[in-house]
């Protein structure tokens, strides 16, 4: 067996009030993909930031190629051959690919001669099949290309150990396939990879070794041959989790939400939604899939009356409008779970009870003659906390003190418990742990069973595929296709998401 390339021993890192890593070990062999798996906040990012010299560990030691080393800055990490692809790309938008690659190379007052850099970029792109134009500006490039530029940047520096922090989060399925081909090529050359993800399918596919983190500690170490998705999920969450969702067969009812030829402008004034028409029937979940930024958010905001409709109209429970307001659509019978629960879904400095009645506080029994009825509010919120198993010390706790999953449950409880017949749900499980996601998915299926019409917007393709009766693929503001679940394949959806029809 080859000697390890990287050994991190007993790494501990404390931040005020939190222990982000506690006694974590990580060993990477040359030619291996070693996956770090864990929920948000489990300590994966902290560990790799320590490896890259962005943070200094409080305890523990690191050795590279068998000799101990103190990685005190990214420059040191780069110097010994460690590269990192950050979750949020570390590229300067206003520079070209070649200039981004050249950054940090050379003496301060020397001339930047981009010619050899360009040449080398072309060689490396050729070798690894990473198609990138060295003279393109980053801001002109699509997400997948940007990631290739990031990888090029590392390869240019003769990286021997490459860390990839959630590299697939922003990619379409075909791009993920391409990325995995590249990664295999990198390990074939004897490079070591640290791969961070929380998508279990991918982890099973790409990994040689898997280290699972929970609450800053290593909760397990395994290999794909020795585990299942379920066993990984259990290691991540600390209890058994049901990963499969069963969509019971039922016949959809009458159309509850109708969108006709909708056009909406985005923040920059360009059309973000173009000629979108769709229907959601009672007892049906329609899933909208697409890479982030293809008009999904604008579509939801337009339906909710938060964004002006350029042309077209919507109808809720057969009541038509082309100038909806949030109050009006709620009265028509629409409930809304927005994508940013902290920014739009709840008020962090309000108590759990206050957030639970946020849409009802202005009507009886919660208000009488203009005065809030605290007892009615308390009674209602206690019941919702029980019904939706919201883990909170009590109903008077400030909402921002809860975990992401529990805040999402607060929003869900408020929106689902009313008499709305149409539910507009955006990114319901983004950033929540697998356990909470399981619960949220069960709630959505329960609502479907009760005959609600649900429009589900999510960037998590697995989630949409598992929950929806019908899939609607959006690309650059337009609908690329509407496919019944039983006919849908990941490959086909992936192509539509990239604009290939």
């Amino acid at each position, binding site marked *: 067996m080859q000697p390890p390339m990287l050994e991190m021993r007993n790494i501990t890192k404390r931040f005020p009030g939190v222990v982000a890593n506690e006694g974590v070990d990580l060993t990477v062999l040359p030619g291996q993909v070693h996956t770090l798996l864990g929920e948000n906040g489990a300590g994966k990012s902290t560990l790799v930031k320590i490896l890259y010299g*962005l*943070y200094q560990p409080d305890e523990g030691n690191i050795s590279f190629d068998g000799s101990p080393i103190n990685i005190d800055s990214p420059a040191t990490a780069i110097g010994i051959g460690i590269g990192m692809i950050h979750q949020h790309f570390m590229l*300067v938008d*206003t*520079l070209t690919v070649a*200039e981004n690659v050249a950054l940090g190379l*050379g003496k*301060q*007052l020397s001339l930047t001669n981009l010619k050899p850099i360009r040449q080398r970029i072309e060689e490396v792109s050729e070798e690894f099949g990473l198609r990138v134009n060295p003279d393109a500006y980053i801001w002109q490039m699509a997400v997948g290309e940007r990631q290739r530029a990031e990888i090029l940047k590392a390869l240019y520096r003769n990286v021997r150990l490459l860390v990839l922090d959630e590299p697939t989060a922003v990619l379409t399925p075909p791009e993920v396939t391409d990325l995995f081909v590249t990664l295999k090529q990198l390990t074939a050359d004897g490079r070591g990879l640290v791969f961070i993800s929380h998508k279990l399918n991918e982890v099973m596919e790409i990994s040689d070794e898997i280290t699972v983190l929970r609450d800053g500690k290593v909760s397990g170490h395994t290999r794909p041959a020795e585990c299942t998705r379920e066993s990984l999920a259990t290691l991540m969450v600390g209890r058994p989790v049901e990963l499969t969702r069963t969509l019971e067969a039922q016949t959809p009812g009458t159309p509850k939400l109708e969108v006709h030829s909708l056009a909406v402008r985005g923040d920059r004034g360009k059309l973000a939604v173009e000629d979108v028409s769709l229907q959601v029937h009672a007892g049906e979940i329609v899933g909208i899939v697409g890479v982030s930024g293809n008009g999904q958010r604008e579509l939801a905001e337009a339906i909710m009356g938060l964004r002006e409709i350029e042309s077209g109209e919507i109808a809720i429970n057969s009541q038509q409008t082309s100038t909806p307001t949030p109050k009006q659509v709620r009265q028509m019978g629409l409930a809304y779970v927005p994508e940013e629960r902290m920014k739009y879904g709840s008020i962090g400095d309000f108590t759990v009870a206050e957030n639970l009645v946020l849409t009802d506080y202005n009507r009886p029994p919660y208000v009488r003659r203009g005065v809030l009825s605290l007892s009615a509010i308390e009674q209602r919120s206690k019941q919702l906390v029980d019904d939706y198993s919201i883990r909170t010390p009590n109903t008077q706790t400030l909402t921002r003190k809860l975990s992401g999953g529990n805040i999402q449950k607060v929003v869900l409880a408020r929106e689902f418990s009313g008499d709305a017949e149409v539910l507009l749900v955006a990114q319901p499980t983004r950033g929540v742990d697998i356990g909470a996601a399981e619960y949220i998915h069960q709630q959505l299926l329960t609502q479907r069973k009760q005959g609600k019409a649900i429009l589900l917007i999510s960037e998590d393709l697995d989630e949409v595929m598992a929950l929806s009766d019908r899939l609607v693929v959006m690309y650059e503001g337009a609908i690329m296709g509407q496919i019944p679940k039983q006919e849908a394949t990941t490959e086909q959806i992936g192509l539509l998401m990239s604009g290939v029809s």
Partner: protein
Amino acid sequence: MSEFFTVAILTATLTSGIRQAVPYLLAALGEAVSQRAGVLNLGVEGVMLIGAFSAYYATLETKSAAIGLLMGLLAGMFMGLIYAFITVVMHAEQGISGIGIYLFGLGFTDLLFQKQVGTPRPIQGLKTKPMNWLAEDTGRVGELLFSHTILTYVAFLLVPAVYWLVTRTTFGLNVRAVGENPHAADTLGVSVNGVRAAAIVFGNTMAGLAGAVLVLDIVQNFQQNLTAGRGFIAIALVYFGAWRPLRVMAGALLFGIVSSTVLTLQALDVISGSVTSIANMAPAVLTVIVLVVVSRRIGQPAALTKPFTRDA
């Protein structure tokens, strides 16, 4: 009005405009580099005053304009180190720190001037005209191009030099990177704070030079608040020039020529009486118009005014 269009008067007015553009140009070039690195310095005016007083006082005492020039540069450099400490090391809010530097420069130079000099005493400036021999036989065009002092040529030669520094050197690449995405630069081992501090020192040294030029090339004397708002107009010119040296130069020339034209038109009695005070507002009005027109802020460094920390 036709009197204005005689060749002699036009030449004199344009020559004056070029001369008046120099302090704007120097200060704005320096500020542009500082802003490209992500640091706004509203204290340009104060640093110009400190540079101007240092150049004046050193020249007065040593009778050497060259020493005066050097002291103006050093004073600017020193202020740059202070501003770098305040904003880069201590992460102070840049807008208010810059205003502090301005108020300090205004009060401090006035205090020193009153205590050390008292009355405005003339000095011999640096008015060498290196190209003048060319101006003799080349008529009006020659006068326009070759009759300037050495500091004017230095200022205009700094335009391609700064362009080259920003676009062709490693330092320039680092400056652009830390002004746009300091985190990206950091992950590649670039010292974000080091690059920013260097850009600030460069910008302030240029402001000090701009003040020295006012004293040594134009006024040859000193007076309270000598810069009279030129530092603030220089900041506006950076926006006008969209952070690019050539466009900044175009803006500086525009301002210089508008100012000299207003003076000439008054002397010719084309504008007089109450119109005078309105005409005198032309540079200020122009500034406002320019800022409204370029308010799209295309090309503004994305990390401008944002202090850098790894935990952000």
